[in-house]
C-alpha cells in the first residue's frame, strides 16, 4: 500500500517540463481531432458552395453531424492487409505519418500565453518533424504491394524533396531579419497592424512559402501522390478503415501546421488590431485554410514534370534572389 503522500512525492519527482509536454500532447490530440471534424465539414460545405450545391445536408441540421458519421463509418470498417504486403511496415506507415504532426503543435504560439513549449529551435523542430511524413508515405507506397501505390510513393518523394528546398529558402529571410528560430520571438517582432507584418517586407517569400506548403501537404493542384484520376488513390490505395483515416487526419493536421507557420512567419501570429490573442491567430489560420480549400476546388491538377519544373526553374531561383536581396538590405 502506497501512502498518498508518497504518490505526491513521486509526481513531484517528475520534471515539470515533461508534465507540460504530456498535457500539451493530450491537448494537441484533441485540437487535431476537433480541427479535423471542423475542416471536414468546412471543406465539404465550401466545396458545395463552389459547386452551387448544398453539400452535406442530411445528417443533422445542415449536415453538421456529417463528420461524425464519416468517422463512425471509418472506425467501423474492416481492416485488412493486402496479400504479400509486409504487415508490420504496412500498419506502421499511418502511425509514422500521424505522430510527428502531434509534436509540431507543441511549439506553435497560439497566443501570447498559449504556447506549450517555447524553445529556441521551434522552426527547425517543425521542419524536421514534417519531413518525416515523406518516410511514412514512402513506406505506405512500398509495402502496399500495389503498383499504383508504388508510383504514388515515388512521386511523393521527389515532390517533397524538391519542394523542401524553396520552402527553406523562403523561410531564411525571416530568420535573418529576426535573428531567431524561436516562433514566439518571431511573432513578437511583428506589430498589431497588417503593415507591421512580415508579409509586407517579404511578399515574394510569402507566395513561395505558400505554394511550397501546398505542395508539401499534397493539396490540389499538387496532389500528385494521390492523383485519383491517374493513380486511383496513390499511396493509400490499399488502406481501409482507420489506416486510411490516419492518413486523412495527418493530411489535415499538416494543413493546419502549414497555415499556423504561415500565420506566425508572415501574418503577425497572434497579433491583430485591437486586443491581440489566440482569436486572431485562429482567424488567420482559418482564412489560410479556406484559401487552400478554394484553390483545391478551382484548379486542375498539374502534371508531374510541370510540378518539378515549377520548383526547379521558378521557385528556387526566385527564393535565392529574394534571400540575396534581403541579405543585402540587412547588411546595408
Amino acid at each position, binding site marked *: 500500500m502506497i501512502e498518498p503522500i508518497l504518490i505526491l512525492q513521486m509526481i513531484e519527482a517528475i520534471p515539470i517540463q515533461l508534465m507540460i509536454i504530456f498535457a500539451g500532447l493530450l491537448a494537441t490530440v484533441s485540437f487535431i481531432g476537433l480541427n479535423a471534424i471542423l475542416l471536414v465539414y468546412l471543406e465539404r460545405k465550401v466545396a458545395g458552395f463552389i459547386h452551387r450545391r448544398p453539400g452535406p445536408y442530411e445528417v443533422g441540421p445542415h449536415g453538421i453531424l456529417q463528420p461524425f458519421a464519416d468517422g463512425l463509418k471509418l472506425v467501423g470498417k474492416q481492416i485488412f492487409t493486402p496479400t504479400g504486403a509486409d504487415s508490420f511496415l504496412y500498419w506502421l506507415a499511418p502511425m509514422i505519418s500521424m505522430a510527428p504532426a502531434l509534436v509540431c503543435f507543441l511549439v506553435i504560439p497560439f497566443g501570447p500565453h498559449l504556447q506549450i513549449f517555447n524553445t529556441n529551435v521551434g522552426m527547425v523542430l517543425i521542419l524536421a518533424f514534417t519531413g518525416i511524413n515523406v518516410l511514412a508515405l514512402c513506406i505506405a507506397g512500398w509495402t502496399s504491394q500495389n*503498383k499504383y501505390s508504388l508510383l504514388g510513393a515515388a512521386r511523393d518523394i521527389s515532390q517533397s524533396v524538391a519542394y523542401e528546398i524553396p520552402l527553406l529558402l523562403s523561410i531564411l529571410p525571416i530568420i535573418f531579419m529576426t535573428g531567431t528560430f524561436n516562433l514566439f520571438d518571431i511573432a513578437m517582432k511583428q506589430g498589431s497592424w497588417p503593415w507591421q507584418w512580415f508579409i509586407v517586407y517579404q511578399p515574394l517569400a510569402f507566395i513561395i512559402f505558400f505554394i511550397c506548403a501546398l505542395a508539401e501537404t499534397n493539396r490540389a493542384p499538387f496532389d500528385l501522390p494521390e492523383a*485519383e484520376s491517374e493513380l486511383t488513390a496513390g499511396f493509400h490505395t490499399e488502406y481501409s478503415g482507420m489506416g486510411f483515416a490516419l492518413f486523412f487526419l495527418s493530411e489535415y493536421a499538416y494543413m493546419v501546421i502549414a497555415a499556423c507557420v504561415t500565420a506566425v512567419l508572415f501574418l503577425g501570429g497572434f497579433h491583430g488590431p485591437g486586443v491581440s490573442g489566440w482569436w486572431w491567430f485562429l482567424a488567420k489560420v482559418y482564412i489560410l485554410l479556406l484559401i487552400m480549400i478554394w484553390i483545391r476546388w478551382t484548379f486542375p491538377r498539374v502534371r508531374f514534370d510541370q510540378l518539378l519544373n515549377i520548383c526547379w526553374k521558378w521557385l528556387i531561383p526566385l527564393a535565392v534572389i529574394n534571400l540575396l536581396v534581403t541579405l543585402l538590405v540587412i547588411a546595408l
Partner: protein
Amino acid sequence: MNLDLRLDTSGDFYAQKFQPTKRDDTLILNMGPQHPSTHGVLRILLEIDGEYIVRAEPVLGYIHRMHEKMAEVMSYPQYLPNPARTDYLHALAWGWAHVGAVERIMGIEVPERAEYIRVITCELNRINSHLLWWGAYLLDLGAFTPIMYSFDDREIIMDIMQRITGSRLTYCYYRFGGVSDDIDDRFVNETREQCARMKERFKMYKDLVTDNFILRKRVEEIGEISVQTCRKYGATGPVLRGSGQAYDVRRAEPYSVYDRFDFNIPAYDTCDAMGRYMVRMDEMQESIKIIEQALDSLPQGDFIHPKAPKRAKPPAGDVYFAVEGARGKIGMHLVSDGGKSAYRLKLRAPGFSNLSLFAEVSQGTLISDAVSILGSLDLVIPEIDR
C-alpha cells in the same frame, strides 16, 4: 514478400500475351477495367518506364452485349430501343442511324416537321453529350468543379427532353417515318430559353476553364494526332476535326434537313488535345445555332408519316447509313433478306476506331498525358464494346 512486380505470371489471357519487352527496367501496369479515368470498363495494359509509357494496349469487351445478334433475333420495331443502349450519351444519333437505315431501304418518307424535330432533339442531345464530356474530362485532369456546372446545364436539357420523349438518357424517340410524339409550344419556349442561357454559360466556361493556365499546360501539345493517322485508323468526329480536317457527316453526306441550316464545322489544326477540346466547345455553340434556326423555321404538319408501317418488312438488299454522332461517324450496315428482322446489322461505333489509335499516340507520353489523351478521345465504353 514478392518485390518483383515486373512479371505478372498470374495475369489473365491478355496480361500473359502482353509480356514485357527485353528491357529490364520497365513495369507492367494494368489500368482498368476499374479505374477512375477509363470511364467505365475500359482496360489498358501499359508497359511503363518510370512514368513514361513504352507500350500500351487497350483490352475491350468488358461490357459487350452482342447488340448485333439482338438485331437478328428481334423484329425491327423491337430493336428500336437497343441503339440507345450502345452510346447512352448520344442515344438519339444512334436511334437515328437505325431508323434512317430502315427508312432508306424501305423508302419510307419522313414528314418535314418530323425531320425538324429530329434535328432539334438530336442537337440538344449532342450538347448534352459534349457537356458531360467536358465535365468528365476536367475531372480526369483533376478539376472537380466543372462537372457540377455542366450537370447543372444538362439537367435542364434533360428535363426538356423528358417531357417529350419520356426518358432522360437512353431515348427511344424516333420511329420509322417520324418520331413518337409531337413537340408543343412549351418545348419550343423552354428550348429557346435554354439556348439563350447556354450562350451566357459558355462565356463563364471560357473564363473558368478554357483560359485556365494549368489546363492549357495540360492539354496543349499533348497527344498530337495527324490527319494521316486519323485516316489510317478511321478516326472521325471531333478527333479528326481537332486535327484540322473539317469532315462532318452532316455536311459530307447530308441527311435529313441539315443542308438547310447555316452552321460551321469547327476545325483546329493544332492536332493536340486542346484542338479536340476547342472543337467540342465550338460544336456546342454550332448546335445551338442549328436549334435556333430549326425552331424559327419549324413547319407544321405530321410528326410521323400517317402511312408509316407498323411492322417494318424491308425488301432484300443492303444499305449503309451514316450519321454524325457526338463522337464521330455512326454507321449502320443493314442487310435485309426480306424478313421481319434484320439478316445482319453491323454497327460502326466511332469510339472503336478512335480508340484504336491510342496505342500509337500514347507511346512515349507520361501516364498523366495518357489520361489526358484518353479523355480527349471522348470514350463511351458501351459504344465501343457494343
